């Protein structure tokens, strides 16, 4: 099973994991990190230890903003871990899909699917 780590500003990671567990159930191997009150180096250390705790079948790190301290910290950790992928712009449809499919897809196939799911979930809906 592919592991997941959500790294965000403020309480977003916690709230996303909570919401995903409500919809899809199992939220094991889904770690969270907040950048609240952390220096860049402290944030890198938190992400590093979350990656170290993750399973052996690859890890996807999700961040909110692409251009932010969370993504920057994750890119620094990525350099030393060939089995870790970074996906920015996390949303709930993407995360729910991750929870549902991470047992039956391998790492890169899962990343490709999540990018597609996350993007296609953004639509304008109009009432009749």
């Amino acid at each position, binding site marked *: 099973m592919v592991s997941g780590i959500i790294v965000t500003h403020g309480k977003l990671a916690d709230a996303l994991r909570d919401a995903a567990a409500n919809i899809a159930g199992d939220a094991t191997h889904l770690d969270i990190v907040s950048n609240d009150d952390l220096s860049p180096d402290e944030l890198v250390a938190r992400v590093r230890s979350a990656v170290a705790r993750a399973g052996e079948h690859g890890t996807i790190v999700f961040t909110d903003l692409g251009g*932010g301290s969370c993504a920057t910290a994750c*890119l620094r950790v990525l350099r030393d871990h060939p089995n870790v992928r970074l996906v920015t712009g996390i949303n709930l449809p993407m995360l729910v899909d991750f929870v549902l499919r991470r047992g039956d897809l391998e790492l890169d196939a899962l990343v490709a699917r999540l990018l597609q799911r996350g993007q296609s979930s953004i639509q304008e809906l109009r009432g009749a």
Partner: protein
Amino acid sequence: MAEAGFVRVDERLLHGQVLVAWAAALRPRRIVLASEEVAADASQRAIFESLPTDDYEIAVTTIAEAAAALRAGERVLVVVASPADALRLVECGAGIGAINLGGLRGAGKRRLTNAIFLGVEDLPALRALLERGIALEARELPGSRGLVVDAATLDRLES
């Protein structure tokens, strides 16, 4: 921007507040991380230059290069890591009149605002900037309340 360029001291370097909120308020053409350390480190540099951007470019430069861009009147948002680097930028001839203090932390430092903590090592550079007639303002976000930092402010921190 009153001046074409804008300078911010932020040890977090390029992060969400800068790349999203300040970029939206200032609409710079380029956001420049001016740091000798990052400019000399190919992998750190690649990380910052690979961040996704909207309407601006991201560049990592030396402090002298950033000073030249400011002096040339380029519409640029320059971020430096420390008051000492801000002073170096001015000494390189940036020709700016004001500096934004955006984020400084660290154990054992004294609190100026929730985002700015200053240590004794920061004070000489800040005093030198004031002596050169540069206005210092602590302001985390474009919409947050700014705090003017003058010599009396620094005296109070030191006492």
